């Protein structure tokens, strides 16, 4: 197509010319400079008709309403807890959102969540100044213990979960581990030590090779070799949005 100087799915760098002339329109992550459209960050260029946008390959996670994320408690207050979201902005978990139990005013909140606890929570609200409120009221939201936590590139989370959870389900089936993936790139893995190690190795492999086609098959073969067991490919389960339970 005339005007385009790159192909769909090319990796582009800031300042790189994506199109010349006025035929194309800049979208997320791109901008117009004179009669060119240029990349405004490192990422994958996607062309959709006449619109060019960039899918980021790296960068910090931006919390959005209704995202399910894994956070760590770092402060206990009178009215709730402050949690580390693994972004530049901490979040507030208020007393009423911290648990389904009834809490008396003035009660000692460390009874429920202590500094260092990891929790699975949902983003309720984000203000323009990046004040974030989270809640633990909702299906699947709870404290996470007896497991290991790793951080992955938050942009790779969709790949790690897979279409309708297919990738993460495969890893769970092969290793017998419970796995929860937060949208903020924090992953919880719980199972037998050797299997936790394999699950983490697999997740890191998916993260590293996320751009390669046929990844699902590659991972299937990898898991089968490591466990010595054949994996059945079940029909995809219709599961809850990202971060679903076992």
């Amino acid at each position, binding site marked *: 197509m005339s005007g385009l100087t790159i192909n769909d799915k090319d990796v582009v760098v800031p300042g790189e010319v994506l199109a010349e002339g006025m035929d194309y329109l800049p979208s997320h992550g791109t901008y117009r400079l004179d009669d060119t459209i240029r990349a405004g960050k490192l990422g994958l260029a996607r062309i959709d008709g006449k619109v060019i946008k960039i899918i980021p390959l790296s960068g910090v996670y931006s919390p959005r309403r209704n995202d399910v994320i894994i956070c760590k408690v770092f402060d206990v207050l009178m009215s709730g807890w402050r949690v580390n979201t693994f972004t530049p902005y901490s979040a507030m978990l208020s007393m009423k959102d911290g648990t389904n139990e009834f809490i008396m005013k003035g009660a000692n909140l460390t009874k429920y969540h202590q500094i260092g606890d990891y929790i699975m929570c949902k983003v309720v609200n984000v203000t323009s100044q990046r004040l974030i409120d989270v809640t633990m009221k909702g299906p699947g939201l709870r404290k996470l*213990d*007896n*497991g*290991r*936590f*790793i*951080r*992955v590139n938050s942009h790779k989370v969709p790949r790690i979960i897979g279409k309708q959870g297919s990738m993460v389900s495969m890893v769970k089936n092969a290793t017998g581990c419970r796995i929860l993936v937060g949208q903020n790139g*924090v992953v919880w893995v719980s199972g037998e*030590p*050797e299997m936790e*190690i394999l699950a*983490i*190795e697999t997740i890191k492999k998916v993260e590293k090779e996320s751009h390669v086609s046929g990844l699902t098959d590659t991972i299937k073969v990898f898991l089968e070799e490591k466990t010595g067991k054949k994996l059945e490919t079940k029909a995809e389960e219709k599961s809850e949005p990202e971060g679903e339970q076992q």
Partner: protein
Amino acid sequence: MMMSESRKHITEYLKKGLRLDGRKLDEFREVSVEYGVSKNAEGSARVKIGGTEVIAGVKLNIGTPYSDRPDEGTLMVGVELYPLASPEFEAGPPSIDSIELARVVDRGIREAGAIDNKALCIEKGEKIWIVSVDICPINDEGNLFDAAGLAAIAAIMDAKFPKVEKDGTVNYKERTKTPLPIKKRPIPITVWRIGNDLIVDPINEEEKSTDARLTIASLSDGVICALQKGGDATLTVEDVDKMTDLAIAKAKDLRSKLGGKSK
């Protein structure tokens, strides 16, 4: 990237003879040594232990000796924990951690008599060589003690004296083929106690869960030449017995990575 693991979880792994990354308790990650990585330094080396990477450089200057040691040159070891290498390092004056790291490495090399200080004397009471070793971590994924110690020795092995002109000035642009007067090559290995288990070469998450550590520098014949205990908890004499055996064995492995004459 892993996050701070609970002590309980690490202990469960150790019961099965496993580390967080699947290694055995006494297993090191892959170690590599590269020489001559900085041309302006009189000697330099890069050491990698797993993902931990450290660069060390040697600078040689002529100075005046201490009055109580008029015929001996001096050796100084410094460590710079630049914030480049870890989100936990802060810019500013040296932290106690960087000071401890430098002192432990220094002890292992200087007190062990690695360099023949008398051979650094140019003119008794007047002129001696000052050997400055600076160690700079580039990426900290655990076990800086051993990486720094190995890099320092490698940089010292790499060093060559610059040319000294007839009028006594140093011509840094020309290097001689003369190496430093190295007598021994001590290798430090740090052994860490977690509960009743001993491990070597911890990653960041493991370092945070340890009780106590012992850095043991040893020579190729197994002679111990420096010790430093660290950490909040105690060590029993039995611990020390087992730790030194482990350290001496591992030092042999690391020494083989240095190449060159075995000394």
